[in-house]
C-alpha cells in the first residue's frame, strides 16, 4: 500500500502534468461497498481531474464493476465514504444523468437504426427528433459511420456497433464519461483501431474519461494515469502516471518507456492476482 501515491486535495500535490487542474471533477474517499458478507470495495480512494483520461486495471473480480456502478450512479456505496462531484459532496444517485456511461455490451436497440440509436439520450432529454438527428448526422463521419445512418444494428459489425454506442455516449454531453471495457469483445486488430480512434475523438472533445479494462496495454496506451486495483476487497493499489507524449502512435507500445511502465503495472497486478488465486485455493482446501 505504501507504493500508492494518492493525491490530496490542495495545491501541495500536483495533478498530472499534462493538464494541471486544482479541483478534481470526481473524488472518491474511503469508499466501501459490501454485499451481504462479501466486501467488494474497501477504502477505495481515487480522483479524476477535468479533461483527464484515467484507466483502471485489476485482476478479475476485484470490484471494478462495483466501482463502475457507483460512479454511474446505479449503486450507493456504504455509509461513511465520501463521494464528491465537481467539488460538491453527493450521493451516488445524484450522479445519474450527470455521468454518461457505456457498458461492456453495446446495448443498441435493434428496432432503432444507427442515427436513432445515437440520439437516444438526446430524445430522453426532450430534444426534438429532427434537431437531434441533424446533430448526430454531423458526427457520423468522425465515428466512421458515414453512410450507415439508416442501417440497423443487426447489419453492423462488432466494431461499428461499439462506435454507435460510443457516439450515443458522446452525444449525451456530460463532463464525465465512464467506459467499462468497451472494446473487450472485439478482436485484437479492431480493438487497436478503436483505441487510436478513441484517443483522436477524446483529444478533439476533451471529455473526462474513466476507462475500466483488464488489458494493461490498453490502460497504458490510452491513459494519462493508470489505477491498479487490489484483489477483492478492491482498493487502489498503485497509481501510475503515464508520461508518454500525445498524440500516441501505435508503435509506442514497443518503446522502452512503455515497456517499463508495463513491467511495473504487471508486477502489481500479478501480486494481486496471486493473492486472489491463493485465497481461492485456501478456500477450496478448507471446504
Amino acid at each position, binding site marked *: 500500500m505504501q507504493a500508492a501515491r494518492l493525491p490530496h486535495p490542495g495545491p501541495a500535490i500536483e495533478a498530472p502534468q499534462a493538464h494541471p487542474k486544482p479541483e478534481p471533477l470526481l473524488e472518491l474517499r474511503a469508499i466501501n461497498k459490501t454485499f451481504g458478507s462479501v466486501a467488494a470495495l474497501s477504502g477505495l480512494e481515487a480522483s479524476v481531474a477535468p479533461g483527464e483520461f484515467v484507466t483502471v486495471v485489476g485482476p478479475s473480480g476485484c470490484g471494478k464493476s462495483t466501482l463502475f456502478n457507483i460512479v*454511474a450512479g446505479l449503486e450507493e456505496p456504504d455509509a461513511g465514504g465520501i463521494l464528491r462531484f465537481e467539488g460538491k459532496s453527493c450521493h451516488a444517485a445524484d450522479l445519474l*444523468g450527470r455521468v*454518461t456511461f457505456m457498458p461492456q455490451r453495446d*446495448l443498441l436497440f*435493434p*428496432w432503432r437504426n444507427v442515427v436513432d440509436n445515437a440520439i*437516444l439520450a438526446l*430524445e*430522453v432529454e426532450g430534444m426534438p427528433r429532427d434537431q437531434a438527428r441533424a446533430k448526430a448526422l454531423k458526427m457520423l463521419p468522425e465515428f466512421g459511420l458515414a453512410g450507415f445512418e439508416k442501417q440497423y444494428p443487426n447489419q453492423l459489425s462488432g466494431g461499428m456497433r461499439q462506435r454507435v454506442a460510443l457516439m450515443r455516449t458522446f452525444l449525451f454531453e456530460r463532463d464525465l464519461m465512464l467506459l467499462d471495457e468497451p472494446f473487450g469483445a472485439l478482436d485484437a486488430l479492431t480493438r487497436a483501431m478503436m483505441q487510436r480512434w478513441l484517443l483522436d475523438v477524446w483529444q478533439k472533445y476533451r471529455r473526462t474519461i474513466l476507462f475500466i479494462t483488464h488489458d494493461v496495454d490498453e490502460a497504458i496506451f490510452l491513459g494519462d494515469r493508470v489505477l491498479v486495483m487490489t484483489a477483492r476487497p478492491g482498493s487502489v493499489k498503485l497509481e501510475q502516471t503515464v508520461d508518454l507524449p500525445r498524440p500516441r502512435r501505435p508503435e509506442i507500445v514497443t518503446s522502452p518507456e512503455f515497456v517499463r511502465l508495463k513491467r511495473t503495472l504487471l508486477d502489481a497486478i500479478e501480486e494481486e492476482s496471486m493473492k486472489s488465486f491463493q485465497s481461492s485455493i485456501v478456500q477450496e482446501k478448507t471446504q
Partner: protein
Amino acid sequence: MSRALASPSLAVQRGILGAVLLIACWEGAARGLHLPAYVLPAVSDILVGLWSKRATLIDAAGYTLLEALVGYGLGCLIGIGLAVAIALVPALRSAILPLATAINSVPVVGYSPLILLWFGIGVSSKIVMVAMAVSFTVLLSMLAGLDRVDRRAVDLMKSFGASRFGVLWRLRLPTALPLLLAGMRVSTVRSVIVAIVTEMLGAQGGLGWVIYQAVLQIDFVQVWSAIFVASAASLAFFGLIGFLERKLLFWT
C-alpha cells in the same frame, strides 16, 4: 423468418398439395362408402351448398367477424392496458394476476349463460366473451414480453435521465412487441372460436347460429358450409395479424 421468405412458393405448394390430398380422400370416402350426409357429406356437395346459400353465409360471416374483431380489439386493449399498468405500478401484479387467472381457469364458455343473461343474445354478449378470452392471452404474453427487458438497458436509460414512463415507452414496449404480437396472433383464432360457440348458445345471427339452426333442421351440408366459411375467416384473420407481425418486427 428469412427461411420462410426465401422459399414461400415451396411452402405454399406443400400446403396446397396437402389440402388437395385431404379433399380427394374425403371426397373418395364420402362417395365410395356411400356415407349418409349426416355422417360426412362429400366436399363437392358442401361446395355446392355453400354457393347456393352464399348470401346467408356471407351475412352470417360478417356478423360473426364483427363480433370477433370488436371483441378482439377490446380484448387486446384491456390485456395491453393491464400489462402496462402492472409494469408501471408493480404492486398491481399481485392484485391483477391471481384474479385474471381465476377468471380464466374456467373455460370462457362456462360464463356464457351469465353473459347472455347480462348482455342479451345480441352482438354485445359475444363481444364480451371474445374480449374476456383474448384479454387474458394478451395480458400474459405482454407481461412476459415486458419482463424480458435487459436490466442493463434499463440502467442505461435511467442514466440518461429517463423516467419510468420513458423507460417503458422507449425500451420496454418495443422489447415486449415480439411476444405481444405472438400472443395476438394466437388470439385471432380463439376470438373466432369463442364468437361461434357463444352464438350457438343463443344469438340472432352469425355462423354459430347458422350451424345451430342447420343441426335442428338436420341439414348437415349447411353445417359443413358454415364450418368452411368460419375456418376461412379464421385463417384470413390469422394471416393478417401474422403479416402485420412480420412488417412490425423487421429487426427479429
